[in-house]
């Protein structure tokens, strides 16, 4: 059974069609990547799955239940979301920030209990941030901050995790580290949907890819077929250099396609 299924989804933002006729599926235990040029609609697809934007048409089910019949608190327990480079508005401690991931599990007048503390502990452990628990989040480095925000999303312990460009601000070591966490989580049975710009990471870390262009799915399937030279030239308008590694391709965008490129 699919964890997330999107059928014939269309979304307009301010009368402009942003997504049209999207069919998308993510199953438990897999890392599904969303790639595509800027403005293709990748983030909007994530936001539609979360019910953060209105649909013009189409159907979304989470674990077999229609999105619109899930209460916000119920949906929040089923899907965790890490937005693209979110701002942190107050200099709270890392522990407090990660603890916000437990909100869906609390009702208005109860204090967090032992379950919540254990989940926060697991999230800090999984992202290697337990040592930062007492630090002020605004004093963290970019890499530490990204891991802490991921820990916040993991602390929800939802069966589905949607992550929007989690590694774009990170150095290579931390990029691999975050992608390793996501993959490890998927292997425990979670469903991971991740928006990526780095084609090599998309090739190495995802089980299936959706290539989105101008609000439509241009290609989908295993990374090896989606990341073909033809697709990349047609959609991204770039030519790439590639080297085959043991667990996927290293894909280096090399130059623009077109008359003016050198």
């Amino acid at each position: 059974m699919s964890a997330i299924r999107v059928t014939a989804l269309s979304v307009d933002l301010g009368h402009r069609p942003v997504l049209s006729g999207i069919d998308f599926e993510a199953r438990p235990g897999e890392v599904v990547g969303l790639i595509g040029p800027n403005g293709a609609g990748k983030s909007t697809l994530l936001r539609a799955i979360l019910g953060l934007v209105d649909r013009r048409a189409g159907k979304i089910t989470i674990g077999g239940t229609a999105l619109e019949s899930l209460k916000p608190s119920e949906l929040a327990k089923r899907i965790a979301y890490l937005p693209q480079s979110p701002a942190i508005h107050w200099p709270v401690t890392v522990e407090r920030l990660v603890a916000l991931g437990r909100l869906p599990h609390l009702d208005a007048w109860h204090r967090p209990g032992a379950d919540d503390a254990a989940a926060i502990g697991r999230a800090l452990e999984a992202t290697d941030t337990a040592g930062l628990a007492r630090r002020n989040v605004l004093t963290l480095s970019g890499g530490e901050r990204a891991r802490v925000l991921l820990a916040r999303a993991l602390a929800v312990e939802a069966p589905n995790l949607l992550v929007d460009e989690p590694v774009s601000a990170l150095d290579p070591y931390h990029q691999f580290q975050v992608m390793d966490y996501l993959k490890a989580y998927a292997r425990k049975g979670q469903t991971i949907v991740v928006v990526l710009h780095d084609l090599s990471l998309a090739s190495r870390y995802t089980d299936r890819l959706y290539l989105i262009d101008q609000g439509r799915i241009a290609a989908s399937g295993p990374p090896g077929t989606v990341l073909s030279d033809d697709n990349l030239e047609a959609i991204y308008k770039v030519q790439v250099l590639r080297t085959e590694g043991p667990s996927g391709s290293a894909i280096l965008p090399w130059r623009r396609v077109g008359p003016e490129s050198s």
Partner: protein
Amino acid sequence: MTATADSDAERAESGSGPRAGIFPALLALALVAIMALAMLIGPVPLTPGEVLDGFFAPVDESGAIIVRELRLPRVILGAIVGAALGISGAAMQGLFQNPLAEPGIVGVSASASAGAVFALYFGLTSSIALAVPVSAMAGAMLGMLILFAVAMRDASVLTLILVGVALNAFAGALTALALNLSPNPFALNDIVLWLMGSLTNRSFLDVWLAAPFVMIGGAILFASRRGLAALTLGEEAARSLGVNVRSLRAQVIAGSALAVGASVAVTGAIGFVGLVVPHVVRPFVAHDPARILLPSALGGAILVVLADIAVRLAPGGQELKLGVVTALLGAPFFLYLVIATRRAMR
């Protein structure tokens, strides 16, 4: 708010166990002590013994009148109003994710003031005893309804602030109009003095008028604390955590409109309390927008009762107005906070 003080406070308070309750408990003790002190101070200084006697003496004795009819309602009202301003300021700063927000930002205080000025302008006080507070409350509710009409349409925070700017401007214009067209110097004088904010000559009637609204408003704000904490991550992440941001906004606007509207209705405008108090308590609750609400209420109560003590101790024939004192103390302190924060950022 130096960096060291900040980290010390955080170290002391970052735990979530029983220690987290110590800071509000200390503030509550301090508030009780300062309220007791405020009972002793005034044109007729009283000893603690005389105050106690005043509580139990027959109604017609002067000590009883001073303690029970003059000082007690004044001190209690000061605490209620301060608490309303403090908790509303903290909630507004959480809602707008901005430390410069304050209860007046959405225009409810100005609407309440305009309502009061309306009653003073038409001299309604002579025919109806509660004309000013009731008219001010009506002004606050009208302002709130206008905000609701906008906020409930899924408007952005920016729209909310802009509607607040419009409400503030319009209420200010109405107040200026009343001053402009004032029928006689007495009405003018009444309006100007009322606008400065004061606790002088307030009775238990004022307390009973304001207290229910402040309590209901405060409870509504307190119930919003987890949503405010979630907003630390921004609006979309908060929504993904199951927070209904639209109703959170309505909740914070309704809560502060009730609490602050009722406060302005009985005391007039008392500035800077809602802005400054959350800044002072924030380091002691590790900057947590949820845990700041209760301490801000207690801190606001302490500040207003203290400022009212200062008003009563000030020499000279002309009585200082409470709103003037809070602004005189609050504005330089706020400037200091801005400079200290900028320094900490560098």
